[in-house]
């Protein structure tokens, strides 16, 4: 459990609606995360939890609503006539402050583990190579893969790839890390090595939003838990209390299936 949670929200999403054609995936969601908080989002597949996460760094374009991170509106600029979409350059600048870890890792297959971590700080922030390499090696050590620096992604197990992916996101020194089902593509015996790294991060005070099916992780590590169903937030609050005593029938049904 994290002890250094601030009182003001770092992420504040209000009235989020996302529509794909006629299909409404998110039906007006309010969601906020305070600095230093670990926030888990759970729900059945198709409930919209991944879409909500992807709206936070504008990988999905909002149909309506606003996402604010660190007092900056993400993806759009409000004018008196409406919202104007940001340029790709401005969007990239915003995304540089928000790290993301994907279900399928998405490491760059043509780069070594070390270069995967070093590339973005060098290419995006123009930081000097020596500084970045020093940080990258420290991050490799932190995820327990120092001796895999020169391995290519295809030479690593799923769990190792995901740990590299976390190090890659951390190398940009983001204000918040988004995890999109980080252990769902892993063989069962590789899940814990990734969760352990995530737990360490949480203890160091990293702000994290985690879409997951790992209820155990949510209970042990998260500061808040949000349960989503059919594009809506059904229930949210303290993870231990919610898991022990869900207030809503749909939450109860879901938890009884995954526990």
């Amino acid at each position, binding site marked *: 459990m994290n002890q250094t949670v601030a009182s003001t929200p770092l992420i504040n999403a209000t009235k989020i609606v996302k529509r794909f054609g006629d299909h409404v995936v998110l039906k007006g969601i309010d969601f906020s995360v305070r600095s230093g908080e670990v926030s888990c989002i759970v729900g059945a597949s198709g409930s919209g939890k991944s879409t909500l996460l992807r709206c936070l760094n504008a990988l999905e374009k909002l149909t309506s609503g606003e996402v604010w991170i660190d007092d900056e509106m993400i993806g759009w600029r409000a004018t008196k006539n409406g919202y104007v979409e940001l340029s790709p350059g401005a969007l990239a600048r915003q995304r540089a402050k928000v790290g993301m870890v994907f279900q399928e890792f998405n490491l760059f297959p043509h780069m070594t583990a070390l270069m995967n971590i070093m590339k973005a700080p060098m290419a995006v922030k123009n930081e000097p190579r020596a500084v970045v390499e020093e940080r990258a090696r420290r991050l490799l050590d932190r995820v327990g893969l120092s*001796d895999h620096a020169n391995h290519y992604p295809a030479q690593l197990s799923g769990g190792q790839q995901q740990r590299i992916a976390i190090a890659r996101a951390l190398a940009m020194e983001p204000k918040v890390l988004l995890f999109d089902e980080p252990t769902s593509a892993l063989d069962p015996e590789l899940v814990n090595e990734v969760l352990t790294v995530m737990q360490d991060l949480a203890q160091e005070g990293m702000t994290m939003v985690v879409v997951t099916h790992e209820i155990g992780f949510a209970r042990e590590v998260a500061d808040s838990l949000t349960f989503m169903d059919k594009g809506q937030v059904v229930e949210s609050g303290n993870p231990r209390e919610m898991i022990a005593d869900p207030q809503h029938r749909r939450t109860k049904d879901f938890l009884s299936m995954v526990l």
Partner: protein
Amino acid sequence: MSISLATPKPESLRRYPYRSKASIIFGVLITICAIGMLQSVMRNPNFGWDVVALYLTAPVILKGILVTLQLTVVCMVIGIGIGIVLAAMGQSNAMPVRAVAAAFVWFFRGTPLLIQLIFWFNLSALFPDLSVSVPFGPELFSIDPNALITPFFAAVLGLSLNEGAYMAEVIRGGLLGVGKGQTEAAQALGMKPLKLMMVVVLPQALRIIIPPTGNQTLGMLKNTSLVSVLAVSELLHSAQIIYSRNYETIPLLVVACIWYLVMTTLLSGIQFLVERKFKKSDRSSSRRGLIPESESVDTGLLPQPTDGPSLQTRTAS
């Protein structure tokens, strides 16, 4: 239940792979046919092998080869450049930009190369005087198209523009072959579109683009023979110049074919080497999962997250 001691161990027995009778019969037949054809060609006086030998390394022919190679290299380089620009335009957010790229590909792929070449050559008939001027303003400079469009220039123009349309499709296919997850990962790290393209997408697309580009180069080498109609003195036209004087048409066409074969064979060899090099460095093609030796390095010295305090996630209930 007992096994006879006389039975040899299974691993010591020789194994004979399956050979189909049809393949043996077919092989013999093909060999006989090939020898027969070769003999009839070699003995046929109409092929004029002595003339072939005489002109195989004639200076005019060698100069023609040089022009052919020049055209191939220059037009491929320009064609690839045009292809990259068109492929990038095709991915643009702006509809007019995409439309221009699509129209270009549509036109240059949809009309015969030979006609395009003749068109460029006769540009002066279409536009008897080319000038650049400010709209509704004074003329800046004007040029005589007959001086500008030399046969060689028309050839380069025609071959390059046509190649650009085909390369645009090749490159587009390569870019589409790189997964969406790669783009999203790069976007999430804050890369701008150009960086993302140069650092993440293009290096991976290259592996998909290279084999068809090799094919395009071979095609270009042969297509340069079309510009003989513009009287550009490449290999075929050089041969034509000679046989228009001595009427040894067939032997000189044989000379040209031999040289085309030599060049395409060399190009195929280069293509093979380049593709092998890229395959070697393509780590992504190997299976996802553990390679044994990388796992063995893992044990020991460093604290592994797997060894750390594990969460009770799996036992939670």
